[in-house]
C-alpha cells in the first residue's frame, strides 16, 4: 500500500469510503491501544507507553529515512537532547524551573534546531557519508552529556521531569503518550500525502527530475529535519519522564538501531509499516526474555534479512493492490483533443511574443567542446527539431537550457528576461518543462502521484498547512489530482493511474513523463528523444500529441533520432554536428541539404 493516498473530489461519504481501507489498520491499532488498559497490568502500561514514545520519534524519522531516503542512523542523539533539555529545564539547573508542559515545547524547538544542524550535511552528502555524520553526532552528544556535569549531572544523571495529575499514574501517562503518538501519526500522514511528501520521494528516487519540476531540495529537507528533530526531542522529554531518572547510559546506540530498523522493516514510503515495525521491535525482547541480551543481534539479523530478502518491508507485503496482474496487451491511446480543456490556450494571448533564444552558447567538458557557439530560437507554438549524430551536443543543449550545466559563454533569454545559467530549480517557475532521455520516474509511487509531482510548484499551501491538513492544502490536493487525472487521459494512461510506476512498460513511462511536464502548463517543452523505444503506432500517436501541444501555443524543442518524426511534425529543424550548427531551416530545406545528408541522414 502506498501511503500517499489520493482523495478524489467526492461527497463526504464517498471520501470516507475511499479512505477506509487506508484508515482501517490505524483504527485497529488505536482500538488495541484503548483496550490495553482494560486487560493489562502496569507492566503492560510501561511497554505500551514506551511503544508510543518510540513511535513519536519514529514517525518523524520515518519522513527522513523512509520518504526522503536519508540514512540517519544516529537519531538517539536527538532523543538524548530532548530528554536532557526537558529534565534540566524542569529541574531548574540553569534557570528558574519551568513546568513540564512549558519545557516540552522548548525542548521541541531545541530539537528542531539540532535536527537541522545534524541534517544539513544531507544537502551535500548521501548514504554512507551522511550515515557516518549522524553516527559521529550521536557519539558526541553522549560524551557531552557525560562531561557537562554542572548541567547534566554527568555519569550520575538527573531526575526526569514529572508530569502533573492526572498524568502521574502509569495509565494516565500512557494515555498522554498515546494521544501525542496519535497526533504525530496524523501529522506525519498529512505530510506524506501532501505535495511535500511526494516531493520528498521525488528527491529520493528521481532527484534530477524533481529539480526540473521546481522542487527545492534545501527547503524540503530543512522543513522535514525541523519536524523530525522536534518530534524526536518531544519523545526524549517523555522518555525521560518514563525512566524517572536518566544517565547517559540510558541512551545506547542500540536505541538508534531500533528506530532505524523499525522503519526499514516497515518499508519505505509507508506510515503503517514503520508503525508496526516499532510495535514489533518494542515487544520482541519482552516476549522473549532470555533473548533480551541478544536483542541488538536480533535487530541486526532482521535488518540483514529485510535488505536481502524483502527490501520493500512490511508495507510491500501488505500491498495487495499492486499484485493484481495488469492487462498484457494494453495500448496507449492518447486523446490530444482533451488538451483544450486543461491547458490555457496561448494563441493570441500575451505570451505570444516570448521566444526562447540562445546566442553563442558554449560549453566544454575538459578539452571536449560539447557545444561551441550555438544559436537557437524556439518560438511559441513552434515545434523545433534538434537533430544530429551522437555526441553532437543535442542533450547537452537541453541540459544547458534546463540549467543542469552552466554554459561557459553566451546568453539565454526568454522574451525580455535572461535565463540565469545553472539553477535548474528555477526553470519550472519560468515555464520550461522537460522530459529525459531515460525516463526519470519514481518507481515506488503510483502513476497518478508521478504526474502530480509535475505540479509541485502550483500548490499554494505552506508546509504548516500541509502538516495540519488545513483547507488550502486539501484544495491543492484536489486541484492537482484532478489535473493529473485529466492529463493522464490526454496521454492515454488514465486506466493505470493507481498502479505503481515501476510495473509499467518503457513506452508508458515516456508518456508519463510528458504528462508530468504538462502539469506545469509550460510555455516551453523540451523533449529528449521521446520516441526512443516506441513502436511505430505509438510514434504516430506521439506525433499527434506533440502537434496538439504546440497548437495550444507551447514552444516544443524536440531532440530525436527518428528522422521521419522530425520531418513530419517540425516547423523548423536545427542540425548539430560537433557542437556547432551544421544547418538550420524548414524540414524541406534540411532534407535536401548536402552536408546534412552526408553527415547524418545518409543516402
Amino acid at each position, binding site marked *: 500500500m502506498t501511503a500517499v493516498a489520493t482523495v478524489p473530489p467526492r461527497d463526504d461519504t464517498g471520501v470516507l469510503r475511499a479512505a477506509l481501507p487506508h484508515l482501517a489498520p490505524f483504527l485497529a491499532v488505536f482500538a488495541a491501544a484503548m483496550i490495553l488498559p482494560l486487560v493489562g497490568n502496569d507492566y503492560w502500561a510501561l511497554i505500551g507507553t514506551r511503544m508510543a514514545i518510540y513511535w513519536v520519534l519514529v514517525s518523524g524519522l520515518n519522513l527522513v529515512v523512509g520518504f526522503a531516503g536519508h540514512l540517519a*542512523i544516529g537519531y538517539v542523539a536527538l532523543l538524548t537532547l530532548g530528554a536532557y533539555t526537558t529534565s534540566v529545564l524542569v529541574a531548574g539547573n540553569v534557570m528558574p524551573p519551568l513546568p513540564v508542559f512549558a519545557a516540552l515545547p522548548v525542548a521541541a524547538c531545541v530539537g528542531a534546531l539540532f535536527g537541522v544542524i545534524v541534517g544539513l*550535511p544531507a544537502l551535500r*552528502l*548521501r*548514504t554512507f557519508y551522511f*550515515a557516518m555524520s549522524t553516527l559521529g553526532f550521536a557519539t558526541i552528544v553522549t560524551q557531552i552529556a557525560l562531561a557537562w556535569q554542572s548541567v547534566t549531572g554527568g555519569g550520575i544523571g538527573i531526575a526526569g521531569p514529572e508530569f502533573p495529575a492526572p498524568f502521574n499514574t502509569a495509565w494516565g501517562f500512557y494515555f498522554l503518550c498515546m494521544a501525542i503518538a496519535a497526533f504525530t501519526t496524523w501529522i506525519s500522514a498529512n505530510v506524506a500525502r501532501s505535495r511535500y511528501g511526494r516531493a520528498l520521494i521525488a528527491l529520493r528516487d528521481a532527484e534530477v527530475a524533481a529539480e526540473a519540476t521546481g522542487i527545492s531540495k534545501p527547503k524540503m529537507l530543512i522543513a522535514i529535519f525541523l519536524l523530525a528533530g522536534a518530534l524526536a526531542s518531544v519523545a526524549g522529554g517523555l522518555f525521560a519522564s518514563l525512566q524517572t531518572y536518566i544517565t547517559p547510559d540510558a541512551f545506547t546506540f542500540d536505541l538508534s*538501531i531500533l528506530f532505524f530498523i523499525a522503519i526499514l522493516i516497515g518499508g519505505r514510503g509507508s506510515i503503517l509499516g514503520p508503525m508496526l515495525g516499532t510495535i514489533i521491535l518494542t515487544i520482541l525482547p519482552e516476549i522473549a526474555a532470555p533473548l533480551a541480551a541478544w536483542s541488538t543481534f536480533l*535487530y541486526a539479523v532482521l535488518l540483514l534479512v529485510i535488505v536481502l530478502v524483502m527490501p520493500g518491508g512490511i508495507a510491500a507485503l501488505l500491498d495487495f493492490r499492486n499484485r493484481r496482474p495488469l492487462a498484457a496487451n494494453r495500448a496507449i491511446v492518447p486523446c490530444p483533443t482533451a488538451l483544450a480543456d486543461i491547458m490555457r490556450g496561448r494563441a493570441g494571448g500575451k505570451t505570444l511574443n516570448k521566444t526562447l533564444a540562445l546566442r553563442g552558447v558554449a560549453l566544454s567538458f575538459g578539452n571536449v567542446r560539447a557545444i561551441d557557439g550555438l544559436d537557437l530560437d524556439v518560438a511559441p507554438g513552434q515545434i523545433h527539431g534538434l537533430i544530429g549524430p551522437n555526441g553532437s551536443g543535442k542533450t547537452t543543449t537541453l541540459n544547458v537550457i534546463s540549467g543542469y550545466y552552466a554554459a561557459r559563454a553566451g546568453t539565454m533569454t526568454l522574451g525580455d528576461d535572461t535565463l540565469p545559467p545553472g539553477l535548474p530549480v528555477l526553470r519550472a517557475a519560468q515555464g520550461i518543462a522537460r522530459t529525459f532521455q531515460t525516463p526519470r520516474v519514481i518507481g515506488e509511487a503510483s502513476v497518478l502521484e508521478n504526474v502530480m509531482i509535475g505540479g509541485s510548484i502550483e500548490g499554494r499551501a505552506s508546509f504548516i498547512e500541509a502538516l495540519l491538513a488545513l483547507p488550502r492544502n486539501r484544495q491543492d490536493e484536489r486541484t492537482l489530482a484532478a489535473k493529473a487525472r485529466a492529463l493522464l487521459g490526454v496521454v492515454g494512461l488514465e486506466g493505470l493511474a493507481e498502479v505503481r510506476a515501476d510495473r509499467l512498460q518503457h513506452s508508458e513511462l515516456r508518456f508519463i513523463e510528458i504528462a508530468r511536464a504538462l502539469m506545469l502548463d509550460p510555455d516551453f517543452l523540451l523533449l529528449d528523444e521521446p520516441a526512443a523505444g516506441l513502436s511505430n503506432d505509438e510514434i504516430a500517436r506521439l506525433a499527434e500529441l506533440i502537434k496538439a501541444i504546440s497548437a495550444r501555443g507551447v514552444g516544443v524543442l524536440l531532440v530525436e533520432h527518428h528522422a521521419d518524426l522530425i520531418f513530419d511534425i517540425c516547423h523548423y529543424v536545427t542540425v548539430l554536428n560537433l557542437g556547432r550548427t551544421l544547418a538550420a531551416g524548414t524540414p524541406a530545406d534540411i532534407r535536401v541539404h548536402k552536408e546534412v545528408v552526408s553527415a547524418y541522414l545518409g543516402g
Partner: protein
Amino acid sequence: MLASILASGLAAGAIYALVGVTYNTMFSTSRVMSFTAGQLAMLGGVFGSMFTLKLGMPAIAGFVLTLLGCALIGIITEYVAVRPVLKSLDQHLYVLSTLAVALMIQQVAAIKWGTEPQPFPRLIGWGGGVLDEKFWLPVLACAITILGLEYLYRRTLVGRAFVAIAEDNFAARALGLPERNLRIASYALAGIIGGVAGFSGGELLLAFFANGALLNFYGFVPVALGGLGNNRGAVIGGLALGLFQQAANFLVGGIFSSVAVFTLFIVVLLTAPQGLFGASTARRV
C-alpha cells in the same frame, strides 16, 4: 607535553590510517563502503588478547591466528553482506547490509568477550615513556603495511589486477580478470589490514568491543579527508587526524577534542565532498 602529543597522536593516527586503508581496500574492488572496517580493527585487539593472554600462545602465533580470524570475517562479510547487494549498487543497500553485519560482530564480541576493556599483552618490551612500544608499534605497522601494499599494487600481477578492477570494473572483466575471486581476496586483505591495526594498537586501545564503532568513525575521517580509495590520502589524513585529536585532547580536554574532530569532519565534507586529494564526482544528468 609536545613529545606526548606527538607520540600518542602519531600512534592513534597510524591506527586511524590503517582503518582508512581497510575501508579503501574493500571499496577498491567492490565500490562498497563497509561498516565492518572498524569492527575488524576491534577484532584485531580482541582476538590478539584472546590468543596471547587467555590461551597463552606466543605472540607470533597469536598474531598469525588473529590475522587469519580477521581475514575470515572479511571473507564472510563479502559473501553475506556485499555480494548479494552488488547488483543494485545504486540503491546503496550495502550501507544497511554491512551495518547489520557490523552490529552482529559487535554484539557477539560484547556478549562472548565481555563489555569491559581487557588488557592486551606487551609484545616486545622495548622502549619506555614516549618511546614506549605502544606508541611506535602502530606507526611501524602502518609503515610496513603501506610499503607492502605499494609493492603489491605496483610489482605483482595480483596487485595490478586489483588496480585494474578498481580503475574500471567492466573493462577488467572484459579482459577476463576473475573479478569475483579478486573481490574475495581484497576482503580477506582488508580483514588482515584491519587485524594489523587492532593488534598493533592493542596496547593503546585495549581489547574492547566498543572500539569498533569508535574506529568506524575515526577511521572514516581519514578516508573522507584523503578522498575515497586514495591510500596515500588516508595515511596523511589519518596521521593529521591523530595529531589534531591528541593536541586537542591535551590542550582543551577529551570531550572538546571529539567535538573538534566532528566539526572538522563535517566542514571538510561540506567544502570538499570528494576529499582533499580526491577526484571530482561524476556527472549527474
